[in-house]
C-alpha cells in the first residue's frame, strides 16, 4: 500500500497559508521506498524529464540512507525539494511506474521531497564545489527554474555567473506564482542560497532589454548569455467587461499575495477578495488562485471551465486538494461577459453552457456552445487564469532575435542557441508555459551547450 501523505485537515488549512502536505516520517519514507521493485529497465526514469536515477535513490533510501539518496538525486536535479512538491508526477515519473499498472505507483515525488527536507533539517546537505575556476563570465537572464538550473551548472563548470532578475526577489514563478501553502518560500530561498553559495551572483531589479541590453552585456565582458525569462504575459478572455474593477489576471492576484505578501498586515500592498470569487480556467494556476482566494476569506470560490473534468490540466493532487477545501466547479461553462455595478466593479459573470463535440486531431474533444443556454454567476472577484504568452520586453529590445510564430524564442533544437551567436534560451520563453522540471532540464541542457560553445570558441 502506498504511504498516504499526512496533510493538514481541509477545514483548518483553508484558513491558513501554511503548507498543506506535512511530509513523511523517516519510517514512512523507508517503507514506501521498499515498495520499489528495482526494475532492470526502469520506466519511471524515462518519465522524468531530467532522468533522475530513481531506483538508485530509492534503494539508498530503503536502506536507511537519505543523505546519499539526496546526493544521487542532485546528480540530475539541483532543486529536489521543489520538484518533489510541484512536479505533475502522475504524468511523469509515477505515471510510468510499473507498480502503478495494478496498484498505486511508488510515491516518487513524496520521497524526493522527503530526502531533500530531511537533509535540510538535519543540516547535512551535499556541498557542491565548482570543478575548476574559468576566467569567463556568463550572464543568465531570469531567475526562474530554467535560469537557476543553468546558473548552477555553469558555476559547476567553473564560469563566473551573474543572474539578472527584473523583480526585487529571485525565483520566478516559484516566488511570485506558486503559493506558500504548496511551496513554502523559505524552501525556495534555501535552494536559491545554495546556488549563490556556488559563487553565482544574483542581481535583482535589472530588466534586461531596458536597464541593460544584450549588447551591453557582451560589451561588459560576458562571453555567453542564457535567456530564461519565462512566459510571463497573462492572457485575457477578450470579452466585454474584462477591465472592470475586481477582475484580475491570476498573475496579478498571485503576485500581490506571494511576492508582495498582501495577506500579511505588516505589508502595504492591498488586495480585495470579496465574498464570491470566480476563477476562469482549470490548470495549476487556476487551482492556486482559487485556493488562495479561499484562504483570504472568500465564502464561495468557484472554478469556471469550458471543458469537462477529464480535460482539466491541473495536477490531480491539486484538484483533489481544492475539492476538499470546498472549491466549487462549474464545468462546461464558458464566460461570455462580465457585468459591473454603478462603481464599475464586477458583479456577474455571464457564462454560456458548453457540450463536448467530436474529438479533434489531437484526440481532445473540443467544447462547443449550447445555443441560448446562459447562466449568470454572481461574483465580486473574477480571476482569469487561462494561460500566459511571451513577455515582450526583452524580445522587442533585442535586434536580430528570431521568434516562432507564437512569439516565443526560436532555438536550435540541438544546442538551444538562438539566432544570435552566443545567446541561448530555454524554459517557458521557448516552449510556452510548461513545468518546473522541464524548464530546469532545458536550463541544464543549455548550460552544457554553452560550455561546449565556449570551449569551441577558445579552440578557434
Amino acid at each position, binding site marked *: 500500500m502506498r504511504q498516504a501523505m499526512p496533510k493538514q485537515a481541509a477545514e483548518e488549512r483553508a484558513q491558513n497559508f501554511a503548507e498543506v502536505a506535512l511530509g513523511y516520517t523517516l519510517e514512512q519514507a523507508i517503507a514506501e521506498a521498499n515498495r520499489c521493485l528495482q526494475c532492470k529497465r526502469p520506466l519511471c526514469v524515462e518519465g522524468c524529464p531530467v532522468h533522475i536515477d530513481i531506483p538508485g535513490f530509492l534503494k539508498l533510501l530503503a536502506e536507511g540512507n537519505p543523505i546519499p539518496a539526496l546526493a544521487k538525486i542532485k546528480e540530475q536535479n539541483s532543486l529536489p525539494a521543489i520538484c518533489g512538491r510541484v512536479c505533475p508526477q502522475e504524468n511523469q515519473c509515477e505515471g510510468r511506474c510499473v507498480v502503478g499498472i495494478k496498484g498505486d505507483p511508488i510515491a516518487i515525488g513524496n520521497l524526493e521531497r522527503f530526502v531533500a527536507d530531511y537533509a535540510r533539517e538535519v543540516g547535512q546537505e551535499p556541498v557542491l564545489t565548482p570543478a575548476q575556476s574559468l576566467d569567463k563570465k556568463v550572464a543568465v537572464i531570469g531567475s526562474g527554474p530554467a535560469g537557476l538550473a543553468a546558473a548552477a551548472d555553469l558555476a559547476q563548470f567553473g564560469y563566473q555567473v551573474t543572474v539578472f532578475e*527584473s*523583480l*526585487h526577489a529571485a525565483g520566478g514563478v516559484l516566488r*511570485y506564482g506558486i503559493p506558500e501553502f504548496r511551496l513554502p518560500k523559505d524552501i525556495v530561498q534555501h535552494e536559491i542560497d545554495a546556488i549563490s553559495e556556488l559563487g553565482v551572483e544574483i542581481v*535583482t*531589479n*535589472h*530588466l534586461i532589454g*531596458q*536597464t*541593460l541590453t544584450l549588447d551591453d552585456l557582451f560589451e561588459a565582458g560576458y562571453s555567453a548569455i542564457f535567456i530564461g525569462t519565462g512566459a*510571463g*504575459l*497573462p492572457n*485575457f478572455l*477578450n470579452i466585454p467587461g*474584462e*477591465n472592470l*474593477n*475586481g477582475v*484580475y*489576471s491570476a*498573475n*496579478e492576484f498571485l*503576485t*500581490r499575495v506571494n511576492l*508582495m*505578501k498582501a495577506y500579511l*498586515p*505588516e*505589508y*502595504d*500592498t*492591498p488586495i*480585495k477578495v470579496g465574498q464570491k470569487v470566480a476563477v476562469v480556467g482549470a490548470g495549476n494556476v487556476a487551482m492556486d488562485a482559487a485556493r488562495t482566494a479561499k484562504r483570504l476569506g472568500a465564502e464561495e470560490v468557484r472554478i469556471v471551465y469550458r471543458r469537462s473534468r477529464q480535460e482539466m490540466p491541473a495536477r490531480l493532487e491539486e484538484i483533489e486538494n481544492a475539492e476538499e477545501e470546498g472549491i466549487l466547479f462549474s464545468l462546461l461553462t464558458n464566460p461570455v461577459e462580465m457585468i459591473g455595478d454603478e*462603481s*464599475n*466593479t464586477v458583479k456577474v459573470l455571464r457564462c454560456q453552457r458548453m457540450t463536448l463535440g467530436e474529438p479533434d486531431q489531437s484526440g481532445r474533444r473540443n467544447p462547443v456552445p449550447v445555443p441560448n443556454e446562459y447562466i449568470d454567476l454572481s461574483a465580486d472577484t473574477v480571476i482569469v487564469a487561462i494561460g500566459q504568452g511571451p*513577455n*515582450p*520586453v526583452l524580445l522587442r529590445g533585442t535586434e536580430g532575435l528570431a521568434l516562432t510564430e507564437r512569439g516565443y524564442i526560436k532555438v536550435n533544437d540541438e544546442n538551444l542557441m538562438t539566432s544570435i551567436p552566443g545567446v541561448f534560451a530555454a524554459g517557458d520563453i521557448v516552449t510556452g508555459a510548461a513545468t518546473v522540471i522541464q524548464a530546469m532540464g532545458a536550463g541544464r541542457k543549455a548550460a552544457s551547450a554553452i560550455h561546449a560553445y565556449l570551449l569551441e570558441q577558445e579552440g578557434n
Partner: protein
Amino acid sequence: MRIVEKRILAKGICLFVIEAPLIAKKAEPGQFVIVRHKENGERIPLTIADYNRDQGTITLVCHGIGKSTQEINQLNQGDSFLDVLGPLGLAMPIEKVGKVLCVAGGLGVAPMYPITRILKAAGNHIISIIGARSQEMLIMTEEMEAVSNQIHYCTDDGSFGHHGFVTDVLSQVLQEQEIDLVVAIGPLPMMAAVAKITKEFAVPTQVSLNALMVDGTGMCGGCRVTIGEKTKFACVDGPVFDAHQVNFAELLSRQNFYRDQEQAALHQCRIGVGR
C-alpha cells in the same frame, strides 16, 4: 540607490536626485521607475522627472498622497531606496512638429519638464500651460520658463495667474493659434478634459497614464487600459498614449478601487497601530 539631494518643492511634494547610473544612461523622456523604499513596502511607480547621464543620477518627484508616498517623502539626503527598477515603459517619440502646447497640472509639471526640454531642443516652439491648486503648489516654474517660448499659469484659487483651470487657457490658445501637438500630464480628470477639448480642435494629443501597477514589466496585467478598442498594458505599451484613444472613465474607476483599503493603511500608520 543613494539619495544625493532632496528638495521640498511644495507642501507634500519632494524632489529626490538619486544615484542610478545604469538607469540614467538609458532613461528617455516619458519613462518611469518602480521603487520600494523599505522591506515590506509597496512597489511604487514614479516618473523619471530628469536624468543626468554624466553624473549617473536620475530625479524623481514624489507627491505624498498615501502611506507609501508619504513615507518616501520622509527619506533624506544620504538615505537609500531599497529597490529602483528602470527605466520602464516606452520613451515618448520626440520630433520637430512646429508649435507644441505643454499642459501640466499639479505634480505633472515634474515629468513634463524633461519632455518640454527635449521638444524645445528638437526645434519646436513651446507654449506651456501650468496649473496648480494655489500659488504655493506651483512647482518647477523657473525650469519650465527656461524651456518655453511662452508660459501661462493658472491656479484654482486665483492666487497666481489665471483664476481657473488649465483647460480654460487651453481652449483660448487653441482658438487663437494653429497648434501641431498637445502634450498633457497631470491628474486623470485634467487629462480627460484636455483630451475632450483637443479632440474638438483635432489636434494630436499625448498623455502619460498613471495606471495602478504591481511589477511594471508586463507580467501582471494590473495596469491594463483600454486604448481604442484594445486592451494595452500601460507599463510596457505606454505610459504615453494617444489621448483621443484612451478610455478615461474606465481608468478613473480602476484607480479608485483600493481607496478604502489605502485610507485604512494610512489611518493605521498615522495612529501608529501595529507598525
